[in-house]
């Protein structure tokens, strides 16, 4: 008799979700689904609003990644104004985005995920959390706090310490960088660098390539922006897609024409859509984005320490890693690369220029803004009327891109750990860990908010509830 196992909701991610595992008659895993169960519908809210409001408005999609939406929105509006924004505005937007990557990755690694693997997947749930991490690695936990605070400070100082700062605006930014703030960033950068170097060393010493298979491994394509020479890119660049071997599938694709290659499918059991590579169809067109996606598509980071780290990463595995767990490894490499690039930006004297905004009116009726948010490629696409009122808005967020992959990851892990219908605490932890590796932000993807405990339902093929397991 077939059975369903439901885990709802998943903890330590942003938003509501549940997982259903389908068992066959022998109690082995047949399939799995990762459900997102709430909807807020921001695309409709935006219709009728002016393009000038869009960066501030779309920042409200999420309290976790407002910076990412502000930047993507401002870029889409730049296109509608048909302006080339001042070079200093580009440098400052890049600095803001790098600060966002540092703070977001630091939170994901130190607070949300590290307890799982540094304390052990089968550790007592009462201690397998950041509290246990403090007890076991107190200095690491404190450094993690300060590393995230450094990234947040970049955002606060640039944005003016306001909630949801409308700092990036159509045509540039509304505030230049002061010499005092630049000095603060430079003074505090070395400590942040030391922290990430030490964390990478600890991570590499703790997990060899084999150990990193704990959350499963599967073949997919990977997508991200790269520079003209194939280097890691987070703000501009063009779309590259590679396959599991690292062979180019799509090269140099114009981001403003994303819809030529990416389409979204829907399923009746989740509000989160399934973007996929259109030429390969659904679901074969699955690709992954985010830290591992970017690391797999790029030729190099373009900075010395991160490039040395990338070389070591690839020497241990292959040109492209398919291990879900390697999202964490890639996250650490990206923090290192971001900090190095922050140093490069701050050393550029142009960053203090007061010329940071181009003024213009509506010169195009359509604009696409794309950049790399911490969780992956973020797309804002607007159509406006002659007065700049939004007629249509489309958002494809990072978590959405990874939807197919998260479903696949859940299925792979379930197949590894569920046999003859035996559901253990350790299995639940690993499935949750598989989801958390992608650091999904469901607030963004469908705009739900909140965190909840886990309820696991085992449902037989007739729809009867056979078992319920609750985890607070």
């Amino acid at each position, binding site marked *: 008799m077939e059975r369903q196992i439901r885990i709802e909701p998943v903890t*330590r991610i*942003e938003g509501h979700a549940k997982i259903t595992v389908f068992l066959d008659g022998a109690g082995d895993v047949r399939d799995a689904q990762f459900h997102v169960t709430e909807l807020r519908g921001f695309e409709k809210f935006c219709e009728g609003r002016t393009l000038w409001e869009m960066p501030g408005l779309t920042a*409200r999609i999420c*309290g*976790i990644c407002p910076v990412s939406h502000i930047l993507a929105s401002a870029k889409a509006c730049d296109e509608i104004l048909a302006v080339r924004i001042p070079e200093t505005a580009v440098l400052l937007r890049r600095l803001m985005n790098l600060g966002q990557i540092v703070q977001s990755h630091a*939170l994901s690694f130190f*607070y*949300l995920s590290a*307890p799982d693997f540094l304390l052990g997947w089968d550790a007592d*749930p*009462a201690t397998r*959390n*950041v*509290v246990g991490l*403090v007890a076991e690695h*107190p200095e690491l*936990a*404190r450094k993690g*706090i*300060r590393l*995230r*605070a450094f990234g*947040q400070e970049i955002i606060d100082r640039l944005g003016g*310490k*306001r*909630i*949801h700062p409308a700092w990036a605006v159509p045509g540039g930014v509304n505030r230049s960088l002061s010499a005092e703030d630049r000095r603060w960033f430079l003074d505090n950068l070395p400590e942040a660098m030391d922290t990430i170097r030490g964390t990478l060393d600890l991570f590499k010493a703790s997990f060899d390539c084999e150990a990193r298979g704990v959350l499963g491994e599967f073949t997919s394509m990977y997508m991200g922006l790269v520079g003209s020479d194939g280097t890691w890119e987070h703000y501009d660049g063009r779309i590259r897609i590679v396959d599991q071997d690292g062979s180019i599938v799509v090269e140099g694709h114009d981001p403003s024409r994303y819809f030529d290659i990416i389409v979204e499918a829907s399923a009746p059991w989740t509000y989160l859509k399934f973007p996929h590579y259109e030429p390969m169809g659904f679901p074969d067109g699955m690709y992954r984005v985010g830290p591992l996606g970017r690391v797999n598509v790029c030729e190099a980071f373009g900075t010395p320490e991160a490039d040395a780290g990338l070389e070591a990463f690839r020497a241990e595995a292959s040109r492209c890693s398919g291990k879900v767990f390697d999202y964490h490894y890639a996250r650490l490499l990206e923090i290192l690369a971001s900090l190095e690039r922050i140093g490069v930006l701050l050393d550029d004297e142009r960053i203090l220029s007061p010329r940071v905004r181009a003024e213009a009116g509506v010169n195009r009726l359509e604009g696409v803004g794309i950049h790399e948010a911490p969780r992956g490629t973020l797309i804002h696409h607007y159509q406006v009327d002659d007065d700049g009122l939004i007629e249509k808005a489309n958002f494809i967020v990072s978590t959405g891109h990874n939807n197919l992959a998260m479903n696949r990851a859940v299925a792979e892990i379930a197949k590894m750990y569920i046999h003859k219908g035996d559901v253990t605490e350790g299995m639940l932890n690993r499935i949750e860990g598989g989801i958390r590796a992608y650091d999904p932000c469901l607030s963004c993807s469908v705009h739900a908010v909140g*965190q909840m405990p886990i309820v696991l339902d085992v449902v037989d093929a007739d729809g009867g509830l056979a078992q319920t397991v609750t985890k607070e």
Partner: protein
Amino acid sequence: MADVIIGIGNDSRGDDGIGPRVAEAVPARLGLETLAVHQLVPELAERLRTADRVLFIDARIDGTSIRLDRIGPEAHRGVGHSCSPESLLGWTQLAYGTVPEAWLLSVPGRSFGMGEGLSASAEARIPDAMGRIETWLDGRGTPDPTDGEEVA
């Protein structure tokens, strides 16, 4: 010696924005740091570890009067993208072995739907809230007789 005031809330959700609104209205003074935040996040422990006292200001969904409550660290299992004042204090104690004296000033709200701006009733409570904060600032080191009681 340092005091920290932290206003908590989302200014896009009506009266939920009263915490940041009140915090931003507190006049600057020596030894006082004022923050307005969308939500409490774990790295605020960095600010609290060197503070002597902290006052959280937040909207409340029930009641009709402003409350000033003494609060303390809460033993908790973890931190995420956001946390309560008590769990932030607990996290601070855990991470740094120290925690400031803490109070929560909660101001009743009426409308928490989408939209900016406070309701008339929340707006009318701002002077009372400011008065309570002045008292808190001036009464440092002395027990507050109204702790835990509804006031004005």
